[in-house]
């Protein structure tokens, strides 16, 4: 049970980073990135290739993941950043699907559907089994805290205010002489780099990655985290990720109660529940559990862009 809890918390830390990353893109800036898994996967594979194929230390793997993830984010956003919400969403979705195809087919690089084995782990040598798990959890929580602190500071800074202004109405900051495109690009690159970092951590944790780890369903979980937690609020993103992980992992315990169902059916049922909850939250509480809080007086309409 103890080991299971540690495993759930470790996964939760990865989702916290993903939700925070999406929050800077969507929550603050209003950029709809449905290609979360694309950047997440790019980070995972980059890090794996760096440490396994090229034999570099794990920190270099993470760094490479962040750089490549940021570059990919830059390219995708250059293609599509001028587009309004829906089209950006579709382009990013297409990007994620294309990356999944690449992971599946570029066998020489990613070992395709057989899976990429990653031996390097973010631990010091000589720890016992349990201690290793706790150590990894510690590393992940630390990474999540760092991402939180950095992004939270950014969100409160003048930079974050410009992003929010762009989300509300990009004509206003443009009129004030802000380069809206550059701000959007920066927000997108930052978020993508953080998603890639999450992917790197995940890869070194699970140690075998296959293209199936990076399907749209993961993106739905991340979006669910952000919407449930409260788009625009960094604390909300953290709470949302924890709640969604709790629901997702918690429904695992339903399986023994429903022995008449096959594992496929149980897994399908979990996603039916998650999808339904997402729609219900969007309808009845679009501002999420922790709504974005901004100095009063500044916004007469308390419904964030998610609404």
């Amino acid at each position, binding site marked *: 049970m103890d080991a299971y809890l540690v495993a759930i918390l470790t996964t939760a830390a990865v989702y916290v980073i993903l939700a925070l990353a999406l929050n800077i893109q969507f929550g603050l800036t*209003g950029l*709809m990135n*449905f290609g979360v898994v694309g950047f997440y996967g790019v980070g995972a594979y980059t890090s794996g290739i760096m440490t396994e194929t090229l034999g570099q230390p794990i920190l270099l793997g993470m760094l490479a993941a962040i750089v490549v993830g940021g570059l990919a984010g830059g390219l995708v956003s250059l*293609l*599509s950043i001028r*587009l*309004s*919400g*829906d*089209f950006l*969403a*579709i*382009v990013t*979705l*297409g*990007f994620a*699907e*294309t990356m999944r*195809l690449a992971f*599946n*087919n570029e066998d020489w690089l990613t070992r395709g559907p057989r899976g990429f084995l990653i031996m390097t782990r973010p631990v010091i040598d000589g720890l016992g089994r349990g201690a290793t798990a706790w150590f990894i959890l510690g590393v992940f929580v630390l990474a999540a805290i760092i991402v939180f602190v950095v992004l939270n500071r950014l969100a409160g800074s003048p930079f974050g205010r410009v992003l929010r202004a762009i989300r509300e109405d990009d004509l206003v900051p443009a009129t004030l002489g802000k380069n809206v495109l550059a701000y959007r690009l920066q927000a997108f690159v930052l978020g993508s780099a953080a998603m890639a970092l999450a992917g790197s951590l995940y890869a070194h944790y699970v140690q075998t990655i296959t293209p199936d780890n990076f399907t*749209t*369903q993961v993106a*739905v979980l991340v*979006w*669910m985290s952000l*919407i449930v937690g409260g788009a625009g609020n960094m604390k909300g993103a953290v709470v949302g990720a924890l709640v969604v992980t709790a629901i997702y992992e918690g429904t695992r315990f339903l399986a023994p109660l429903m022995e008449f169902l*096959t594992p*496929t*059916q149980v*897994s*399908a*049922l979990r*996603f*039916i529940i*998650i*999808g*339904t909850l*997402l*729609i219900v939250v*969007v*309808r009845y509480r*679009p501002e999420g559990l922790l709504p974005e809080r901004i100095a009063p007086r500044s916004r007469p309409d308390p419904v964030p*862009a*998610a*609404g």
Partner: protein
Amino acid sequence: MQLLLNAIASAAILAPAAIGFTLIFTLFRYTNFAVGALMTTGAFAAWGMNELGLPIWMGGVFAVVFGAGLLLASDRIVFEPLRGRSGGTLLLVSIALSVIIDNVIRFAFGTQIRAFDLPLRPPLTFAGLRFTPETLWVIGISILATLAVGALLAFTRLGRALRAVADNASLASIRGLPVPRIEAAGILLAGALFGLSGTLAGLDLAIEPNLSLALAIPVIAAAIVGGLGSPLGAALGAVIIGLAEELTVAFISAPYKGAVGFVVIALVLLIRPQGLLGRPVERK
């Protein structure tokens, strides 16, 4: 030539759904990503009837009715309460809906790959082209359906009313058109087209619950290429996507067929954001 025939066969599968997608977009201004899931549902509905021993064409009719009903039901339950929300929100909701539908199918039918009960026949050859009788059926039915919907929109009272509502719902309402009923008719029509496309996809490809994304992206790409809002454009867009897919298979690599839709969308949005036959959309 063989390539062209294959491209037209791919386009025939996409075209009805792309027209349906465009119809929903013009009526309600949102991207319904669930189009892939609805097509998959259509394929399963037709396959289910076929399994029960009915001929495939009856399965197809059932899929059309089922698709229409399902889209109307999903609109009433999910989308109608959210009218007026931003396009992004509705897209998010439609992706969630898509995940739900996929998993309902997975729940009910498992992850096995299915196929219609078709007799195995050697492909026909004609003027050096190889094709199966099913391919001919797919192309023929698709062209008929496209022409019928085009005629419906262009020449009938319902078509005129649909275009009026899509153009300006409040103006149409002032002029005495029963807007909710016309919208419902549009939704039924789009759903029927999704069901039809799903059946055609089932005839040509394997039927499995993981089909949704592979179907949704090319359909949406076809609609965008054609210029959202133009049914003729959507059909033309389907031909272009089909051609691009077959060129990819022939000259680049078959597995990357799935990336074609994305690349084409990106190109069109960069070069000609209003699509081939669309008019520029004013900003806000």
